[in-house]
């Protein structure tokens, strides 16, 4: 694989990996497939601009310098997710996974329509850090600086999260809860705290995806985030439900597979790229029904 291709694959895979992690964290602690995650991403993007239905977007928070802006957007993402948990998912703690999923979907619809009312249906331009667009040459590959920063940001986020999950008490509790929630609770894990923390992290990760996406594409659209959320959801399952590192690996893998298919397929077959991709997903599942990196004990016990 050429270096160029590797970078292309990473640019897409990185975004999917961070999004998949956001989905897997919540799935791990409360068996919720959070279909509102895509709208969390969109909300974090739109938080950058002043609400108005005018065609021309006026930067609100987006005009702030990066050291203030980044933590602020992460906080907004986290706050939104925690609020969603407290208002919607906490009262449904005992509902079936399907009911939870449908209510997360309803939440997503509500958020999306709220954005439509506030910002209008026309996509908007968001010029965030456009100066990062200059190409850089690395060992024969020409890569926009931005793409490098995207890859670096993904690595930093993943490393930071791994450190947090391994070294802090909260991280330990969260991993325990993801593996076996009932058992963890019996062993003294404070469930509300862990679930809130998982939502906060997940919302923060949605905000990371939002920033990366805006920096890469320069646009805000109410429908953005949906496609990424679906891929992330698939990655979570392919990676092995409940396995956080599995979700990351599968996210990277799906992104890379998509880039490889785009590069390798003959021109007539390229429009069918996603059909090949999802066919691959079904094949992987048939051979590894528990996912590629299923945690020990993921098989249903008798």
């Amino acid at each position, binding site marked *: 694989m050429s270096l*160029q*291709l590797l*970078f*292309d*694959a990473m*640019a*897409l895979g990185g*975004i*999917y990996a961070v999004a998949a992690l956001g989905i897997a964290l919540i799935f791990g602690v409360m068996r919720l497939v959070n279909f509102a995650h895509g709208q969390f991403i969109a909300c974090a993007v739109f938080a950058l601009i002043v609400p108005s*239905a*005018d*065609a*021309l*977007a006026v930067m609100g928070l987006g005009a702030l310098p990066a050291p203030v802006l980044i933590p602020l957007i992460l906080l907004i993402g986290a706050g939104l997710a925690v609020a969603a948990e407290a208002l919607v998912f906490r009262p449904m703690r005992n509902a079936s996974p399907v009911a939870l999923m449908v209510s997360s979907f309803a939440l997503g619809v509500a958020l999306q329509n709220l954005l*439509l009312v506030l910002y*209008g*249906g*026309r*996509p*908007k*331009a*968001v*010029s965030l850090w*456009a100066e990062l*667009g*200059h*190409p850089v040459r690395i060992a024969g590959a*020409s890569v*926009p600086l*931005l*793409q490098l920063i995207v890859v670096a940001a993904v690595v930093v986020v993943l490393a930071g999260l791994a450190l947090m999950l391994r070294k802090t008490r909260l991280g330990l509790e969260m991993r325990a809860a993801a593996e076996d929630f009932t058992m963890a609770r019996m062993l003294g894990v404070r469930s509300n705290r862990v679930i809130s923390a998982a939502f906060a992290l997940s919302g923060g990760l949605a905000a990371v995806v939002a920033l990366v*996406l805006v920096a*890469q*594409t*320069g*646009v*805000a*659209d*109410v*429908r*953005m985030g*949906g*496609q*990424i959320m679906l891929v992330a959801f698939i990655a979570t399952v392919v990676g092995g439900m409940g396995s956080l590192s599995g979700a990351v690996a599968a996210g990277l893998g799906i992104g890379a597979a998509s*880039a*490889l298919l*785009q*590069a390798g397929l003959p*021109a007539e077959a*390229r*429009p069918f*790229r*996603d059909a090949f991709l999802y066919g691959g997903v079904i094949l992987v599942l048939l051979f590894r029904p528990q996912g590629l990196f299923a945690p020990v004990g993921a098989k249903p016990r008798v």
Partner: protein
Amino acid sequence: MKRLALALALLAHPALAQEDLTVGFAIAKSGWMEAYDTPAATAAMIRIDEINAAGGLLGRQIKVVEADTRTDRAESAKAGLDVLDQGAEMMVVSCDYDFGAPAALVAEGEGMNSFFLCAEDVKAGIQGVGPNSFSASVLAPVQGATMAEWAHAKREARTAYVLEDTFIEYNKGICTGFNWMFPQLDGAKIVGSDTFKNDDASVASQITRIKELPDEPDVIMLCSFMPGAAAAVRQLRAAGINSLILNGSAVDGSYWLEATPDLSGFVVPVQGSIYGDDPRPEVAAFNAAYKAKTGNSPASQYAYPGYILIDLWAKAVERAGTVDGAAVTVELEKMRDEPTAFGPRSFTSELHHQNTALMQIIEITGGKPARVDEWRISQPVPLDALMNK
């Protein structure tokens, strides 16, 4: 305000105070299509106000009734029935073929005329609705063909690369027109093509393929719409690709230019310039009227077809002396290069669309859009090329 004007008009012409003539708008007033339908509908209202102020149509004042399609196919048909029940005698439907057709089919079933606000798919007319349906916009393939011929003639484009967004039919139409026209031109060659999807988070692989070409192509034909088009342009320029980028009308407007600051070498064909530099006084007058009505200039050229459609329909009604669908259709089909504020328009019994049109060429240089030229393709796009993609 409108009521007042109407009352004044009635007072002024007491003899003509007969029943109003009703035009129904079955358009998206909520959902994402709203952003595209509202400007064109506003433009249509401007023309209606002008006609009413001048004494109305066939001596009758035009009354407008509305229903919301909610950007939904099934709701579109219901909105069509709704305006019908409110007494509509002509129906204006949503910009996009898919969301407008269910309502237009309702109108067709009643033998009424229907106009798509700005559909650019050949099906938005005889081919996809029926003999009384029209669109006032310019077919997408014409836009692609215009780009091909203009770039070849004025920018010495000899090599082209086609990047097609497979997400919606409009994009494919642009590429159809380009792929039909460009290879016919002297010494011109399409050196490669690729596809992407509007919501792809990254088009890095597509860019790598362009960069692997032995020579950077003279032009890149980007067949896409917002937001994917803006994202693709940003990534193309970020990767250091400096070819002239050609597009369809769908990316007109300066609202998205912030996505790629200091963008240069980006060309769009439009029906009229929204940037205040259109040489035709009628366009300037319309822009001023639009600003007076809404407080802003049009955000893109897609307001214009709304004005054109009422203009053409009203002319045909005057000539036919009735609003009966079939009679008006006959008059519309007689139009050959009928002058409008935005250039001549023609309809035939085969095609209720423009298969050639005088288009203004907008080029973006240093982040500033400006009208640089105008162009009309040397031969109309044939029906075969329009239908068999």
